[in-house]
């Protein structure tokens, strides 16, 4: 069974390569579906496979760049990518990320920053989950009231509509974003992307998890366009991140390529699945993913606070994340297969 293991030339460890491909497929499906890189899912997975953590972030970012490229191309064909919006937001994201990263280095010099970062992450995840489910609840209430009045439900109605308030800000230059179908001041996406980049820089994450809901709730993108545009940004920031981490010698290229084999295929599945699931379906599953991520962080925090049960709590956190990856990938794949069957049946009629 030696052929199932490959020696990593840089880190010097032997890894079960089918595990890397399976992890890549799962994360690829979820990334292509939600529009995020998925670092919070990859790190526990790599940990389980015995991958050295010094290389985990760089390797993840490298594979994420390739996976996001595929997803962006596919989403682009569907008309889900607003390139103008993505490029404008990239400016704010990069500046914000650098400011956040500098702040973290400043906090590091002051003292123990890990606890602060984890708690901040938890608060943020809680806010995102609340936003998503409050939005779903509001939309369901609106649709109920519409049906009670005997009117037809508007398929384009939304729950939370903060973006409408944001769009009232009329500071030049005003820009029309064709794919997103919105007109707003250019400063809005720049400011929102600066904030999301700043938070991502502080938390040390890619930012897809924050940027996707920000695109929906503050800028007003339809869900599918938020997913596609977010992936466009993840692709560019992923390539930049891959370069900088590799320059620091922190990327295991062999592992990144192996994961990418699975992720490239998974990303296609996840992206195509968005054809068959309504926008609010994507939002609900996203909200559940955020809650799962928050629970895994709580378990990690508890592991630090209760050393006697550290092993159990850390293992529970890893199991939770990998269980989430498996469960969500399965759900998305099943929905895709059902959608494909319906599409092919409709074609034959």
């Amino acid at each position, binding site marked *: 069974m030696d052929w199932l293991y490959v020696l990593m030339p840089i880190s010097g460890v032997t890894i079960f390569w089918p595990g890397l491909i399976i992890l890549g497929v799962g994360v690829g499906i979820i990334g292509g579906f939600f529009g995020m890189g998925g670092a919070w899912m990859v790190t526990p997975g790599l940990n389980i496979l015995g991958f050295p953590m010094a290389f985990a972030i760089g390797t993840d970012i490298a594979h994420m760049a390739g996976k996001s490229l595929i997803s962006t191309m596919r989403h682009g064909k569907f008309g889900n990518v607003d390139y103008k919006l993505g490029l404008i937001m990239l400016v704010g994201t990069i500046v914000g990320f650098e400011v956040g990263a500098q702040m973290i280095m400043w906090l590091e010099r002051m003292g123990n920053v890990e606890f602060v970062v984890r708690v901040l992450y938890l608060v943020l995840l809680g806010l995102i989950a609340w936003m998503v489910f409050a939005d779903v609840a509001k939309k369901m209430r609106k649709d109920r009231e519409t049906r009670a009045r005997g009117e037809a439900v508007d398929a384009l109605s939304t729950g939370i509509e903060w973006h409408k308030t944001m769009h009232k800000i009329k500071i030049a230059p005003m820009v029309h974003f064709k794919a997103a179908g919105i007109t707003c001041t250019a400063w809005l996406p720049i400011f929102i992307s600066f904030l999301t980049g700043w938070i991502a820089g502080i938390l040390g994450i890619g930012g897809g998890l924050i940027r996707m809901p920000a695109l929906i709730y503050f800028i007003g993108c339809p869900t599918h366009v938020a997913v596609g545009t977010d992936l466009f940004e993840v692709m560019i920031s992923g*390539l930049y991140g891959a370069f900088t981490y590799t320059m620091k010698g922190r990327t295991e290229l062999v592992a990144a*390529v192996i994961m990418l084999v699975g992720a490239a295929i998974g990303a296609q599945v996840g992206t195509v699945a968005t054809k068959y699931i309504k926008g609010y379906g994507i939002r609900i599953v996203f909200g559940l993913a955020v809650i799962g991520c928050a629970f895994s962080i709580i378990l990690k925090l508890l592991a630090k606070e209760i050393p006697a049960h550290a092993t159990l709590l850390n293992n529970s956190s890893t199991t939770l994340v990998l269980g989430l990856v498996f469960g969500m990938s399965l759900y998305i794949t099943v929905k895709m297969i059902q959608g494909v069957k319906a599409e092919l049946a409709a074609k034959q009629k």
Partner: protein
Amino acid sequence: MKGIWMKINMFVITMCVLMPQSVLAAAEKASMVVIVSDTRGVTGILRFWGQLYNESHLYFSLLTIVLIPLVGLLFGTLADFVMKGIGIDLEHRELSEH
């Protein structure tokens, strides 16, 4: 609007309460670790990559950012062929709804 501002204010206050954690006793920062690839146990392309890593991180990085998109494109295109062969429409979807 009032409700949103109330929530934002609560969030900011929570952050201020959490900030005192940032003034805990300083810990010593770890010095930069230099990693060297041990190419004695590998052959072929893995040996080449390991040696390139040791010789120049810049060239290794350039190789990484060229290879990663290529591999992604290759396997993504493969998945494209399979999906098109099944009969899935990969060019269109229904009107975007929220």
